[in-house]
């Protein structure tokens, strides 16, 4: 499959990017690593008239620490997250999430911003132009049906990115820029929960930075996929835990792969809060997580399995976060 002909722009600074986005709006697509965008373009899922490449904008590519905490430029490559010793030491979940994406080649190209903005996926959507001719247009492409949840009234495409749950479990903020200015919002407000348009980003906006200010939390990201590489997670879970005198003072449990956006398991968190780090507590939390998440059968993976797996993965995530305590 080939790209259709298009215009290619590569401004040298953020301002240049924002100008292009402001001028061309829907006709422009932001090219970061391209690992998701180019496939969608070849499938003719999107047909931008021009792409604006972030590749020349060095100022979007950094990992730095200041009084706010950790700042990561949206253009930072996933492998650069993995290579950062300070991230590995302070927020191991981010490192673990970045290193579970696809394959070395894709991690070398893919960016943090791209992973945060990753579109939802569905076997009825991520297909070629010719393939989709065989089916009625679904919600995701502007139609009125969902082929996954037949009779459903919305798009059920799945959010499957690895790093967002890790950022969310650390209460990260995201900085969004447009020609008219900048805003910083909690990442939790970035996601809409809608399969059709999973985030709030407008056509003229660009994600420029992720900010993590949490302190003292132990964290982990675990994911389960059918094969060991080049596979989206069936389920991914990030856990962050604040321990005090052997008890869990605060925590976050965030899933990927179970809905149209990352899903925070608040009831599961409540079970953990204030309890000692004991097998029985973890077991109870896992059980709660299993019933708290509401995945549907998708891409040939049964909902029942996903629910049960969700519990097992929560257990693994908590234990992995605690290992970091000992290690």
């Amino acid at each position, binding site marked *: *499959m080939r790209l259709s002909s298009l215009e290619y722009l590569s401004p040298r600074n953020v301002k240049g990017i924002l100008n292009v986005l402001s001028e061309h709006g829907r006709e422009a697509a932001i090219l970061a690593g391209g690992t998701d965008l180019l496939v969608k373009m070849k499938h003719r899922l999107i047909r931008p008239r021009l792409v604006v490449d972030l590749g020349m904008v060095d100022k979007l590519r950094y990992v730095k620490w200041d009084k706010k905490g950790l700042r990561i430029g949206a253009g930072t490559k996933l492998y650069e997250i993995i290579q950062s010793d300070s991230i590995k030491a302070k927020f191991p979940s981010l490192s673990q999430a970045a290193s579970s994406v696809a394959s070395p080649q894709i991690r070398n190209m893919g960016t943090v911003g791209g992973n945060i903005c990753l579109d939802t996926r569905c076997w009825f959507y991520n297909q070629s132009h*010719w393939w989709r*001719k065989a089916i009625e247009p679904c919600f995701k492409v502007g139609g009125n049906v969902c082929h996954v949840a037949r009779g459903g009234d919305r798009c059920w495409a799945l959010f499957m990115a690895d790093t967002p749950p890790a950022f969310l479990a650390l209460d990260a903020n995201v900085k969004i820029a447009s020609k008219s200015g900048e805003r910083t919002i909690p990442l939790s407000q970035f996601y809409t929960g809608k399969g059709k348009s999973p985030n709030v980003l407008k056509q003229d906006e660009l994600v420029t930075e992720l900010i993590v200010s949490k302190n003292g939390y132990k964290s982990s990201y675990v994911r*389960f996929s059918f094969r060991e*590489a080049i596979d989206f997670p069936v389920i991914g879970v990030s856990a962050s835990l604040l321990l005090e005198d052997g008890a869990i003072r605060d925590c976050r449990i965030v899933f990927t792969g179970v809905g149209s956006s990352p899903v925070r398991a608040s009831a599961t968190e409540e079970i953990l809060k204030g309890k000692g780090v004991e097998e029985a507590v973890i077991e109870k939390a896992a059980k709660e997580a299993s019933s708290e998440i509401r995945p549907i059968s998708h891409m*040939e*993976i049964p909902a029942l399995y996903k629910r*049960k797996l969700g519990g097992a993965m929560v257990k693994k995530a908590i234990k992995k976060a605690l290992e970091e305590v000992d290690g």
Partner: protein
Amino acid sequence: MREYSIVGKSLPRIDAKEKLTGAAEYTGDLRLPGMLFGKILRSHLPHAIIKNVNVERAKGLKGVEAIITGMDSTGDKYGMFTPPSPVFADRDPLARDKVRFIGDGVVAVAAVDEDLADEALDLIEVDYEELPAVFNPEEAMAEGAPKIHDYAERNVNVRLERNFGDLEKGFRDADYVREDIFKTQAVQHAAIEPHAALAFWEPAGKLTLWASKQDLYFTRGDLSRTLGIPKSDIRIIKPYVGGGFGSKFELFDLDFSAALLSKKSGRPVKICYNREEVFVASRTRHAATIQLKTGVKKDGTISALDAKVILDTGGYAALGPVSAFLGLLMLVTIYRIPNMRIESYSIYTNNPIAGAMRGHGAVQPIYALEAQLDYIARDMKIEAKEMRIKNSRKGGEVTPLNSVLSSCGMLESIEKACDSSGLVKDRVKLPEGYGLGIGCSCFISGANIDPNLPFEATIKVHTDGSITLLTGASDIGQGSSTTLAQIAAEELGVGLEDIRVIATDSAVTPVEAGSYSSRVTVMSGNAAKAAALEVRRQLLGVAADMLEARVDDLELRGNRAFVKGSPGREVTYDDLVSYAYSKDRLPITGTGTFRPTDVGVGRPFIPGEGGDFTPSFSFGTAVTKINVDMETGKVKVSEITHAHDCGFAINPMSVEGQLEGSGVSGQGFALYEKLYYDKGKLMNPSFLDYRLATSLDAPGPSDVRSIIVESLDPKGPYGAKEAGEGTIISPAPSIANAVFDATGLEIKELPITPDKVFLALEARRGGVR
């Protein structure tokens, strides 16, 4: 055993450098001046009548040079074999009257570049009248099911049945009888090189086709038939091929379309499938339902087998009848079972076309039989290994289908694989969640199925001393050119590097059936050996003159001829050639032909016909070690030990490569790979969503043990048998049986994905309501 210099040695492939450096040119790399690019518009409906095709708008697009539809072929349906039988010849190169699966080619366009050709496809309007469709064989066979081909009642492409002994008595004699139904999924070859063809219809009216093919002559016959030109006007050249595994056999829509578009445009036309097209429009391994009823005596002897195999061949037969027969043949051959009834069906549905795939027809039923044998072994408290040994064939046996097993290394493969893997010894000691499993295999070494296709090779010694081996055998990555060159070098007493191989150009190389049914090493190998022996005879004649010795006393080895037992009485190969040249005895040419002597030309896969077609069978055993993550259901393969009786390994490194590749591919079939269809639509036509095993999923190099068993078959060159297809059969059942060993779960449907394992475990724990 004779001492060999070149055969039996692990020599690097003669084309390794070209491939590793990227210098090797595949069909898709070729370019001719003025070349156009072709694309094929495919049906997006599973079953529909083509009412009208309007190409006017596409024609008007600047840069579009030619457009063809199904109506541009002769209308003679094609398929394997001449004279054509309706059970094969059910296809048009592009659909004429109706489309029968999503992906059926309908219109082809040639344009000055690929983007334009793509754009043109969007402008073509095809009027379809949609027909009811059917997507599984059971429903297709039911009364009132949509009829896909006029001739095929209840969509039965073929139904084959063979009965041996007294089935009733066999079950009466049994102490234990067990019935199971197994299902295997459609999977794909996933050769790294997609299908490609480049055609040039020369002004003089002759056609040259460069194509990624496993065979030249079935393709040429089908082209002649559908284009309406004599075979002699068609030259087919096979450049380097990046894997076939059964998917690059016979005429495809792109071969025909490139040819006819070239005729219409007067320019060369190239068509390359993209990966999605490979997935939907090439071939798959038949999804199968295998019903087995097996009777066993107390001591483990199998007394009766009643088997029914149903294959989903998709919208067209392709090789469906052969696939159905091969399953039957392998069930008959693998174990000594006195009483049998075997029924095998190839059934039309509106799914994409199934066809030959490595381990053709055998993979599905042998998986089922091997899995059931382990269930029986547990039920009867017999060791799984003993179960196989008790029923194993031995060399010299004649099977109920009258195959003479001229050699059989089954027992040796079982012993060696079990010893090396610790199957019996370690099984009892494994912790919970760990398992060891065994799987056995047998497969044909070649098929003698077409009287018009002999096996021939020619060797020429030129005036400059260089040696050329001409062969029609298709090297598709399996290394056949190297194997054949080794044979020639061995007989001529020269080095492997002294042989230049020119292969698979129908205008240059001798007629050859192609690379399928694991026939090249045995049949082309024997032909190459015969050609080399003829050249050797002539070279020795020259040497006898020079050395004033009797031919019988001479030997050719190490690039010289010498008198055996008389040190110093020798001439170098170069002097030999100079002398022959001076005496006008060059070039020396030898042509060798091979015909299996005790095997006829049979087409037992056509209902009503019979006969045998294979000279010998390979045998093998795989033992796999796995562990199951009880919390997720995921199966991890940690070790595989794989012993294969290839008769004699002409190149042991190549045989090991086949064993290692088969292990990973078999693992994919057992655990990950599946083509998911939704009403005939393939849901995962990409390498992201179709899960081939990656290097991280496969066991590490030190945990893969390849064992070569050499039973020295009298019919093969140096004793060789096949090593390319039989190897793929045993890994999947060995993995399934290891999962059974680890968990006690009887999962009778492949692939054994984590959700199946986990939900079965939960059901047993009582956790799922």
